[in-house]
């Protein structure tokens, strides 16, 4: 089975950044309904900054170092809610594969689980509160479930499927965290923007994995 090195991680971040650019206005519109209308903008600012820094400073670094650099860059470019959430997620991702110059499929499952845990820790949120946790948490469980013997493609596909289902499920939830928590029933019927973008990120990872000669 193929492994992923630093350059692969850079390419993956690039794919995510490109996807976010395409979805920017859509994500902002989702946030307009139940939040402050900027989620596409915050994600775009963050991943554009990451993409730029990695293009210049990533060569020769390990996957862990790249995650750490991405975390710091994302945090300081964005702030907002997603800055600390994704920065913590990416720091945990880096810690999960610390020291390795190549990571395998099982490591990727650990990375997804570490990211979910980081987000839950930073946001003090649990599943069911209509946040990105509702995508990341089931994705992590699915990735860990497929981990034993699973290919990169299987693991990331399982995570993406679970993430998508989790994001869709936020539509029927009342929010317990974030700006929409003050809307009560008014938020019901609308998908959480942070969960939607999380599902898109997981989907981009899975697609990217499926396009690689495995």
């Amino acid at each position: 089975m193929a492994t992923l090195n630093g350059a692969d991680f850079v390419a993956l971040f690039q794919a995510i950044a490109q996807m976010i650019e395409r979805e920017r206005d859509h994500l902002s519109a989702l946030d307009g309904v139940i939040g402050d209308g900027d989620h596409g903008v915050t994600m775009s600012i963050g991943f554009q900054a990451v993409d730029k820094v990695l293009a210049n400073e990533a060569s020769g670094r390990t996957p862990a170092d790249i995650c750490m650099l991405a975390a710091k860059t994302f945090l300081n470019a964005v702030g907002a809610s997603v800055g600390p959430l994704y920065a913590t997620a990416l720091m945990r991702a880096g810690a999960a594969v610390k020291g390795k110059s190549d990571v395998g499929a099982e490591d990727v499952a650990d990375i997804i689980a570490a990211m979910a845990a980081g987000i839950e820790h930073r946001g003090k949120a649990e599943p069911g509160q209509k946040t990105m946790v509702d995508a990341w948490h089931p994705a992590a469980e699915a990735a860990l479930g497929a981990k034993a013997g699973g290919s990169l493609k299987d693991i990331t596909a399982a995570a993406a499927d679970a993430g998508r289902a989790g994001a869709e499920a936020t539509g029927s939830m009342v929010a317990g965290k974030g700006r929409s928590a003050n809307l009560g029933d008014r938020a019901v019927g609308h998908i959480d923007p942070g969960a939607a973008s999380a599902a898109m990120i997981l989907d981009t990872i899975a697609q990217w994995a499926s396009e690689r000669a495995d």
Partner: protein
Amino acid sequence: MSPAPKVKKLLNDPDNAVDEMLEGILLAHPDHLVMSDEHHRAIIAKHGPRPGKVGLVIGGGSGHEPTFVGFVGRGLADAAAIGNVFASPPPDPAIACAKAASGGEGVLFMYGNYAGDVMNFDMATEMLAMDDIEARTVLTTDDVAVENLERRRGVAGNFFIFKAAGAACDKMLSFDECERIARKANAHTFTMGVGLTACSLPQTRVPSFELGPEEMEIGLGIHGEPGVRKGPLDTADAVTDEIVDKIFAEMDPEPGEEVAVLVNSLGATPLMELYIVNRRLNQRLKDRDISVHASWVGPYCTSLDMSGMSITLHRLDGELTGLLDHPCDCAMFRAGQ
């Protein structure tokens, strides 16, 4: 249906809007403000921080001007950490602010209770502890529209809460005293607002929510997020009454009490309408035998170009009156003396 035309704004590259604004602010107010050497989004009072004084650092997203940066100056905040539009600043500018504001007696972080701000400032607090700077946080939660106390947001009433805390710091009170006063000022401040039209971000230039031609958002935050509910737009007096009823229910004032008043424009609502609201507000206060110590009417805490307003009552006692009257001299606000 063709897409609605974009909202017109005077901008260059919208991604540079915040930094260009800060440049323009520093050029306009060189006697009051300087940029921190450590971070370009950390704006420091020229005559604020000094040894032995508790530092007051405020901050939050941009788009609320004159909040936060306009309230930096002697007698009020020592520094403001500036985020992107409607986005909490990351930890770095907050850290740079805290270092500049620190007089060795500790630093108060004060900002509105929003998930993003809490996470970023808490990360800053953790990192400052490694540099032996103690930062304590006092969240502002003056928005009475929200029933759940823990979820109450900081909105325009920040103005009075920061003012009291800034005066306490300027009077060289102890860290514990400054923190106590900040919490007390927050508990004494009651705000509720209504939105008539949505605002639009520099990057999108589309209204952030939809609102019917005869509707208003009631109890909204200051980031263009929808309010706790929609209602029919009514006369100025009826809207004022609705807000005042809610504030009175929350604050339960006694006859003979004294308050300070803020009638705040969310951006596009002109002074004429605010003063019409202030007229009714004063009738209501008089009916309850509440006297007004001081009033501010104008755009103090805005949501870009949103049309709408909020009313804040700041319940006074001897201590808070003294702090409110304490002089301050900021880039965009002067009071006292």
